């Protein structure tokens, strides 16, 4: 399994540039939103966490449709699907994790820089980082389901995103509200954060199983 993580990461860094693309897209989002807001720094700081979260969510979609597509085209997917049920679930868990390492983690790491651009306070930035750290894996896990469903489609890209975005909404809601709660005083940080963590755990369990069910059915 370590081998699988290593391979997927090697491919991601060697050919996809997925990490870079995600971060750049993230940057583009954050650079563009202020146009509508005008130069109102307070407002920017206020909506900063939301912007970062939306950017991260959209950026995670970028590599998602290729998660299994490449493996299918060269025949590796056969070997993965051949495994027994449990190993397959584990494999998919690991592949989602590798996807997160390649696309989600860089976003978390880039967050402080973007927080600076959005004029966010240190607490606020920290809170966003923490929520992203917990929330982006959840996106990768639930995204694996969409990728598995779309694996037999030649141009799954948009379809995967369409199928996944509605499911990712709870992650976004609690991620953003936890990030806000960290700075606005009366609201407590922990309840939404705990819910976010619960969702992440739930998706980490559900995603690989559902993806496995989809892949087992659809091989040709």
């Amino acid at each position, binding site marked *: 399994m370590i081998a699988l993580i290593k391979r997927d990461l090697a491919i991601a860094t060697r050919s996809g540039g997925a990490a870079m693309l995600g971060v750049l897209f993230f940057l583009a989002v954050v650079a563009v939103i202020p146009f509508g807001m005008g130069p109102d720094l307070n407002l920017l700081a206020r909506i900063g966490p939301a912007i970062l979260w939306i950017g991260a969510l959209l950026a995670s979609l970028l590599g998602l449709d290729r998660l299994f597509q490449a493996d299918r085209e060269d025949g590796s997917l056969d070997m993965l699907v051949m495994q027994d049920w449990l190993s397959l679930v584990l494999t998919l868990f690991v592949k989602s994790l590798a996807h997160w390492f390649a696309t989600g983690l860089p976003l978390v790491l880039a967050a402080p820089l973007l927080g600076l651009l959005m004029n966010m306070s240190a607490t606020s930035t920290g809170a966003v980082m923490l929520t992203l750290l917990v929330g982006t894996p959840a996106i990768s896990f*639930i995204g694996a*389901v*969409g990728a*598995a*469903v*779309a694996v*037999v*489609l030649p141009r799954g890209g948009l*379809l995967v995103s*369409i*199928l996944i*975005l*509605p*499911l990712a*909404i*709870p992650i976004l809601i609690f991620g953003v509200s936890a990030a806000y709660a960290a700075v606005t005083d009366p609201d407590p940080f922990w309840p939404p954060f705990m819910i976010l963590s619960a969702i992440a755990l739930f998706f980490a369990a*559900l995603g690989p199983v*559902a*993806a496995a*069910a*989809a892949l*087992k*059915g*659809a091989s*040709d």
Partner: protein
Amino acid sequence: MSDTTISQGWFTSLANPTRFLALSGRVLPYLATAAVLSLLVGLYMSFAAPEDYQQGITVRIMFIHVPAAWLAMMCYSVMAIASIGTLVWRHPLADVAAKTALPIGAAFTFLSLLTGSLWGRPMWGTWWVWDARLTSVFVLFLMYLGLMALHKAMDDPARAARPAAVLTLVGFINIPIIKFSVEWWNTLHQPASVIRLDGPTIHPTMLYPLLVMALAYTLIFFTLHLMAMRNEILRRRVQTMRRQAAQAIGGGR
């Protein structure tokens, strides 16, 4: 042993599309008649109902808005059950049921969105707000359309079945969200007054027409669904025959 074989036999006999066609053909006329009758009664009752002292005549929108919203959710639940049938028992009709429910569910969801907006304009002064219930219904609409796109994308029904079933089940988490969104977040939309644990809190003069309309909508749904399922079975039959014809000539061997 004998017990299971019998139930197995009954189960597979329902799975046989030919048997299903015959059976549904017999049931359909009654179902359609019942649907039309209850719709007529429901329409009469909803216009005979007194106007609301607060909302005036617009309260009549309720009689078509609320059943549409319920049906939107019920239809998805039907699909979810059918999906379990696909995944667990590999029942060949389950996939047909799930697939053909999609456009019908999408239509009811659309209606609940539309009538809701048309009600919201005079009541709230706006067509649309991003409140939790409205948005979650919107998301439901998106999921219907997304699943339709998925089916359209895979021309081989045999291969679309399982992935679509998995996705339907995963998307089911949205249904409780819709149902309870009004209680979890405080929103513009009113909380449940009919389907609640401590019984309905709505006045009978409005409750009865609502219930009859709900019944009518449900019957309409099943009528349409049954018809669509029959179509889908025929569509697959045609596809198969085409392919077989081609292979009989074409393979040459």
